[in-house]
């Protein structure tokens, strides 16, 4: 037990630091044909400008409910309401729709792993080998 307490404390501290300094990474299917993505490319895909990945596969961006705000803040420096208002305009014109929203990181990884054109984002520590990191977004 005396050895357990410091470990628990350390675990809590880690959790806290991970929460605060969580690094989001953009992930893609390993078969998507892309190894890296520039930030601008990521923006164009997530904001609906590009319908395809640089490799020519139809792009399928997905959002993740928990990390969504942090992600857009890190990617385009905008808050969620602004992003929602942006999509609202496009919905109105019928020209596009926002990325589908996944419940958690596991579902994101599942979707990306199962679709060649899918790209999403998760906390770096949740990344599995089924997906490939193509862009890191430091906090």
């Amino acid at each position: 037990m005396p050895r357990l307490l410091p470990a628990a404390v350390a675990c809590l501290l880690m959790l806290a630091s991970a929460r605060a300094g969580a690094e989001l990474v953009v992930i893609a299917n390993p078969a998507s044909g892309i190894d890296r993505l520039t930030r601008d490319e990521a923006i164009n895909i997530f904001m609906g400008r590009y319908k395809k990945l640089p490799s020519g596969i139809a792009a399928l961006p997905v959002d993740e409910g928990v990390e969504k705000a942090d992600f857009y803040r890190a990617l385009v420096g905008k808050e969620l309401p602004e992003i929602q208002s942006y999509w609202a305009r496009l919905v109105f014109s019928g020209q596009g729709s926002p990325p589908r929203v996944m419940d958690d990181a596991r579902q994101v990884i599942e979707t990306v792993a199962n679709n060649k054109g899918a790209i999403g984002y998760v906390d770096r520590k949740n990344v599995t080998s089924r997906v490939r990191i193509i862009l890191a977004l430091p906090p």
Partner: protein
Amino acid sequence: MINPLRTSIAVRSVTVLLLIVGVVGLTFFGLSYRLAEQQEEDEEHTRLVELLDTVERTASVACFLSDKALADEVARGLMMNRTVKAVAITAGGKLLAHRGDSIDALPERDRAPGFMLVRAIKSPFSPAETVGEVVLVPNAAEIRRKVVDAAWLTGRLLLLQIIFTGFGVVLIVVTFITRPIAAVSARLHEMRPEIGQKIEVPRGNRSDEIGQLVHDVNSLVDYLVNILKEERDLHTQLGIEERKFRAIFEHAHTGIFLLDASGQLVSFNGACGRFFRFPDAAAGDVALPAFVDLVDQHWKGAPALIARAVAEGSAVDQDVKVPARPGIAARWLNVVLTPVEDGRLQGVVNDITELKRSEEAALALAATDPLTGLPNRLGFDRRLEKMIDDCHADARQRFTLLMVDLDWFKQINDNHGHQAGDLVLVCTARALEKAVRKTDFVARVGGDEFVLLLGATHERAAIEAVIRKVIAGAGQPISISPGISATIGASVGAAVFEGGAMTGAQLLRDADEAMYKAKAAGRNGFRFARPAGCVR
């Protein structure tokens, strides 16, 4: 035709004011129109820029996504604005949306860089990246219409201002200037300054310029009325003086008259008219005849006296006898003529009849023998002198002098006294007068000496006839007291004046000598001084 510009201050003021306001207003209107145009363009530009700002975000999204529907939405939204003529949205060189006129077909003016708006559209997510552009062409005609509308409003306001200003000026001029002046003028018309009337100051103008004007006019009227009054008083005074002098002139007993340089009678008084017996018609002042013609019948010497007065340049005078007329006695006048200024002659006429009469009486008295009433030696001398003068004037004239000496007179004086002698002398005198013609002259030149002058008689026979009558007359018995009568005789010496160098004294001496010769030859006889009719 009455020109209201000349006759009405209000019309003139309004005209001038409207001209000024009109010119200034039009100038300002023009300026403001230009300004408004510029301002409107600027404002419109700003509005359009703001409009672009408004749609920029959406446009940005549209360009970012090359979303034609969204871009068209933006373009339609912009076109809702009437001042927008055309909109084109391009992204990456491709036309996303176009509304309104074709931009390439627009005139150069509309596409001028300062007029047409070109907005580069940035990416919504990276401000450094330009994703497209919006071109917006403003509607110049619409802008101008707005300017014209605004200008019309300004113009209407200006017109309204001009009208109200005009009315205001008319009101002001009429109320504050024209009406008070008209009122003053009307009062001035009705005013009778001579009874002390004054112009009333219009109410409300007491202390302003009109009040001052009225005050000044009143002062002037006062001044003039006073001058008039003084003038009138002076005139009245002069009239009184004139009448006074006129009265003195008219009622003077001295005749006064004035002749002009041509001898016309300028004026005369009543006394003058009476003296010269001017006809009544001459009393009128019109067309007075020449003075010399008026007095011609009484005074032949008038032209000569006038000429003398003019020639000598000083006062001259003459005694004039105005002969008697039926019912009017003869009168003597003393006329004094004095040259006065301008070649005029002033005449003063005095009645000297009484003076002349007493003078003549005195002269007659001095030349008269008080006892017999015959002329005395003095009277005889004068008569003789005059007759000799007449003979000298007319060489054919002759006359005869008879010297009569009474005979036996001394005895009567001695015997019967001086009273008897005097009676004899008086009777003899009457007898001698009877013996000659009325025109002949009888005088008593000594105690018992008489002289007779027979005018125009020189023939011996005629003289002798007279002498005989004289001797016969003197020889008549005279009753010297009751029951006593005396008879005297007369010795006569005759001498005829033949003219030439003979003097009166010589004639008298001749007659005297002849008389003594007759006396020496016996009483009641006569002798001629020299044979009558015999010219030596």
